[in-house]
């Protein structure tokens, strides 16, 4: 730090000729190298522990990995995730817009919805939807205080599948509403003002100007939501939906190969999650267009003496 002592600046009047910066290299950071090596060794050791451990019974895992029952469970999990997420996002968007509209009743209703569905356990909600018939034996469309126009038996409508979709989607909507609301308010107010001044209606301004910009901050937490949704669908096994977890459970209840079959489920959950991460980074790049990107200046990370 000798150079710093001279008038507190590294720049001196007699610093001779400048060297072409294209010759510059990063100084070696030995402690970091050591740490990196240790981390790699540790990871290899952990991998070895898992692969070499007979208790995991890898041959059993591979035996069941592509089993038709497992494949079907995987299909149910994926299908449920997609349908519940799409419905949840649409309802969430409507709730977020209601919440932000100056309309007191709409925003109050949205607030109440979010409060209720975030405040009660997912598991309870699912069981509730599944047992809706005990509360409302009939579902009907009617004008209040008049005989119903159409009416259905609740038990014929609420199957495990519809209970799962309704439960997951309505719960997801509450979380997506907050994610989307956060995204919408992150967009500079000047944008909606400009849109207004150019004659856009509120819907058009949202669709063309506000939402595309909000997407940048909506996508990362939505990725989060999607991943917890995939794992959240495993809850539907309590209402006898044959999702991925339910199907491996069905198998190990027969074969008692609990750990290897749970590993089958783990492998598939991790696989889907990795695919989603990959997709997410692509979508993020799309919505980051128009950003000014510049390379950060390179720096050395080691603590070397700064003397010439």
């Amino acid at each position, binding site marked *: 730090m000798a150079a710093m002592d001279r008038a507190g600046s590294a720049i001196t009047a007699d610093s001779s000729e400048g060297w072409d910066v294209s010759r510059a290299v990063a100084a070696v950071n030995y402690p970091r190298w050591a740490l990196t090596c240790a981390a790699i060794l540790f990871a290899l050791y952990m991998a070895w522990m898992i692969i070499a451990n007979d208790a995991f019974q890898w041959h059993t895992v591979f035996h069941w990995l592509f089993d038709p029952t497992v494949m079907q469970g995987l299909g149910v999990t994926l299908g449920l995730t997609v349908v519940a997420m799409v419905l949840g996002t649409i309802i969430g968007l409507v709730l977020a817009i209601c919440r932000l509209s100056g309309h007191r009743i709409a925003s109050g209703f949205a607030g109440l919805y979010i409060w209720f569905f975030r405040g009660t356990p997912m598991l309870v909600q699912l069981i509730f939807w599944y047992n809706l018939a005990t509360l409302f034996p009939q579902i009907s469309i009617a004008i209040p205080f008049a005989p119903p126009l159409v009416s259905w038996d609740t038990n014929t409508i609420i199957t495990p599948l519809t209970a799962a979709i309704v439960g997951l989607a309505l719960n997801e909507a509450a979380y997506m509403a907050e994610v989307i609301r956060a995204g919408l308010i992150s967009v500079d107010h000047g944008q909606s003002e400009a849109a207004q001044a150019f*004659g856009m209606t509120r819907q058009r301004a949202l669709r063309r100007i506000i939402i595309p910009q909000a997407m940048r901050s909506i996508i990362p937490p939505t990725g989060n939501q999607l991943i917890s949704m995939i794992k959240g669908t495993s809850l539907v096994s309590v209402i006898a939906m044959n999702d991925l977890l339910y199907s491996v459970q069905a198998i190990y209840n027969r074969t008692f190969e609990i750990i290897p079959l749970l590993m089958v489920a783990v492998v598939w959950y991790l696989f889907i999650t990795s695919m989603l991460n990959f997709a997410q980074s692509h979508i993020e790049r799309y919505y980051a267009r128009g950003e000014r990107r510049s390379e950060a200046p390179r720096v050395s990370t080691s603590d070397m003496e700064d003397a010439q």
Partner: protein
Amino acid sequence: MNIIQTISSAPVLVQARDVHKSYGANEVLKGIDLDVRIGETVVILGPSGSGKSTLLRCINHLESMQKGSILVGGEQVGYVKRDGKLYYANAAQLARQRHGIGMVFQQFNLYPHMTVMQNIIEAPVGVYKEKRASAEDYARMLLKRVGLLEKASAYPRQLSGGQQQRVAIARALAIKPKLMLFDEPTSALDPELVGEVLATMRDLASSGLTMIVVTHEISFAREAADRVIFMDGGRIVEEGPPDQVLVNPKHPRTRAFLNRVI
């Protein structure tokens, strides 16, 4: 009304009468009367907080007022008269009324996720249903006029502040406005970028467009304004041709303000 006789007797485009506007208990506009004739360039000067932006924003109804009336081209922006009653306009009526009014903001407010070309044609094509091809031709003509034809496919953040503001001017011109509103268009710019934007605006003023400009650039007022309006405390305290208001102000407030900014 003391309309100055140097301006021709062209028809009045903007007519404000007794405009009052408050934020809560804070009365920001305390009875504004203003006439702007077709082809006129009016520059509004005044200290910070005197209500200049608020007046401008009332003209295109970005802000609603509590009392008085503003006519633009014979229409009350934000309201419709029907059967002897005054109703609030709906979204479609408001869009149509704003068609004639272009606005340029201090912070540019370009759409950052769209290219320069998309920014310019968004309102003409999306809102006013012009043909894309002809809107693009017109956009290129406007870009040429503001000297940025080669930036058509750039994104706003890849441009300098001065270039962004010139794009914003082109975007406002793309809806073929009868009236242009500028709210401190050069205040967010570095001093060396102010000149290019003012040059573009002078060019517009001399082309006969009707403009209302809020600015602190006295030089622009001197060279391009037909009339200068001085506002203070929510009132118009003095108005007249630039060589009168800027050189020989009558009101002590105007004198004090000009001494500070020149």
